[in-house]
């Protein structure tokens, strides 16, 4: 396919996304060489995965799942009770009831990418916190493309049963010496009554990699879903638009994104939250920086019930003349008694902020990078202090060489 066709496709709303020609450009992960065990990873691979928050030692984690190309290389819970972690293909065999969760929040025929995943699933993870269980340390998962020109097709299911609490950190990456690939990741999250999921995803792709996550979330009464999404490195294109349905009273969903687009990257991102039940609350907050890449920051809040409260915030910094940031905030209220708001600000760094730091002795470049670091320095809710520090250092490192 020509790149022009793809560019045109990217301009369309995500709901119309889909691109069979793009998929055909890559060979399926099932044809790529599997990674037999994690010890075979090279040092630079381990480092790259570390930059996505994935620590191969498994220290401070409740479980580890590593999927390289099409195969599950590592899947271990280390004896942690109250949580299940297994390849999704295995879970489908083990639990007949899982069918009721399969393709329920994302439609299988939504677009070419979901169709491809349904047709040629490689694998994915199944994570389930049992009722009332609070899993203290996060589970870490990693979806890793190791061979060039490969399409990886993933489908994940995460369930937090009633009253449980679960933290998942997902690192997605391509091999450091690999540039081209396609990652399709379907994820369905079920937050039952009074349960909580904190989901943190860090992307670290290559410069000619296409990424198409398709995510659905359902949150029941008093449930909480917190999503943190971070991408700081070059990627050809990302198109992601998770949709959360808040079906129970006082359900809460919050989406935080920190997005950096270097030159050549096209990132179409955002979230939609449908507040269906009274007292439901939501926030969609994004911080975006363009170093010459294109970013679309979407957000759509739909208020269907009385007493819902929702806020949308897009803040964008353009640090290169060629950069484009397009904020598309949407508020849609179907009843009168709602509290919904948005604020969006896009532009370059204010001169007075730079000069404030210069008056304290920094050069213009130092002042700029201090402000950018601060802008990206988002305290991520729901994460331990250690993990927050870890993410901050990833963000700081990610800034180098920009």
């Amino acid at each position, binding site marked *: 396919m020509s790149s022009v066709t793809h560019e045109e496709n990217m301009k369309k709303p995500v709901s119309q996304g889909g691109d069979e020609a793009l998929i055909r450009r890559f060979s399926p992960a099932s044809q790529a060489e599997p990674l037999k065990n994690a010890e075979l990873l090279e040092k630079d691979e381990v480092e790259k995965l570390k930059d996505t928050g994935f620590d191969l030692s498994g220290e401070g984690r409740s479980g580890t799942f590593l999927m390289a190309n099409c195969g599950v290389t590592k899947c271990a819970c280390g004896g942690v009770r109250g949580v299940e972690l297994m390849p999704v293909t295995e879970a489908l065999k083990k639990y007949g009831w899982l069918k009721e969760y399969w393709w329920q929040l994302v439609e299988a025929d939504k677009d070419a990418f979901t169709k491809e995943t349904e047709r040629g699933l490689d694998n994915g993870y199944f994570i389930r916190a049992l009722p009332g269980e609070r899993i203290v340390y996060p589970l870490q998962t990693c979806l890793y493309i190791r061979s060039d020109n490969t399409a990886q097709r993933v489908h994940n299911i995460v369930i937090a049963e009633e009253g449980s609490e679960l933290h998942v950190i997902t690192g997605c990456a391509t091999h450091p010496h690999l540039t081209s690939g396609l990652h399709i990741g379907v994820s369905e999250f079920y937050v039952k009554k009074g349960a909580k999921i904190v989901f943190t995803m860090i992307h670290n792709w290559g410069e000619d990699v296409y990424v198409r996550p398709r995510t659905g979330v359902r949150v029941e009464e008093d449930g909480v879903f917190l999503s943190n999404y971070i991408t700081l490195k070059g990627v050809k294109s990302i198109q992601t638009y998770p949709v959360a349905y808040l079906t129970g009273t006082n359900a809460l969903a919050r989406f935080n994104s920190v997005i950096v687009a270097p030159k050549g990257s096209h990132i179409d991102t955002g979230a939609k939250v449908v507040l269906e039940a009274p007292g439901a609350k939501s926030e969609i907050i994004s911080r975006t920086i363009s170093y010459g890449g294109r970013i679309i920051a979407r957000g759509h809040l739909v208020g269907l019930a009385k007493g819902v409260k929702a806020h949308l915030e897009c803040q964008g910094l353009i640090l290169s003349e060629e950069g484009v940031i397009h904020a598309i905030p949407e508020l849609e209220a179907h009843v009168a008694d709602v509290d919904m708001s948005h604020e969006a600000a896009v532009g370059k760094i204010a001169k007075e902020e730079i000069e*404030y730091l210069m008056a304290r*002795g920094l050069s213009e470049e130092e002042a700029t990078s201090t402000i950018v670091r601060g802008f990206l320095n988002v305290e991520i809710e729901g994460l331990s202090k250690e993990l927050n520090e870890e993410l901050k250092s990833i963000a700081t490192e990610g800034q180098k060489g920009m």
Partner: protein
Amino acid sequence: MLKIEDLWVDIHGKEVLRGINLHIGRGETHCLFGKNGSGKTTLLMTIMGFSGYEIKQGRISFKGQDITKTPLNERSAMGAGLLFQRPPTLRGVKLKDMLAVCRRGKDDSGLAEQLAVKYGFDRFLEREVNLGFSGGEIKKSELLQLLAQNPDLTLLDEPESGVDIENLQIIGDMIRKLLQKDIHRNRQKSGLIITHTGFILNYVAADRGHVMLDGQIYCQGNPLEIFEGIQKYGYEECVRCRQ
């Protein structure tokens, strides 16, 4: 320390300063009185070297060097510091990060932190700088930064504005430290304070006062006497007096 000769400054093509002459010696503190819009802040911003203040004529010397064209951060490195009246908020940058910036490359004993604790302001070190700070909190934050920076010439733009009486004492104490008011011989630090209300003079002694009107310095002399005169007769008296 600071010598300004026949300084003319435009902002967006509009003449704001018209032939300023000012000399501040080492160890001296001067006060600048004047109505709103008379050009006081413009003078401070020009001395510090901010963009948007176009020098049409004249010259600024600092420590014997011509700094008329020197960049802002170099003036800071040479030992000039400014207390901002309304500083911008820096998201994600904490006050303690700012203190680290200010003391960079300097021999600092952590005085700013000690004073933060002394004045019950230490919890602000973890706050994003100026985000949701009250008037008094902004001044304390600014002064802590300046104490870490330890400039030889401090320019203070209305340090008492938005500060309640209780905190005025603290602000005064901090300025006195900054300007070495506890040293009576061989004082090294100089200051230029803009004051609208003159209240700060109750806490910080000044050596000389200047009245600024319409971009010009109209009158110079004993700061307390000038301030008394302004309180009694208003700025109009300065205009008449000069005529």
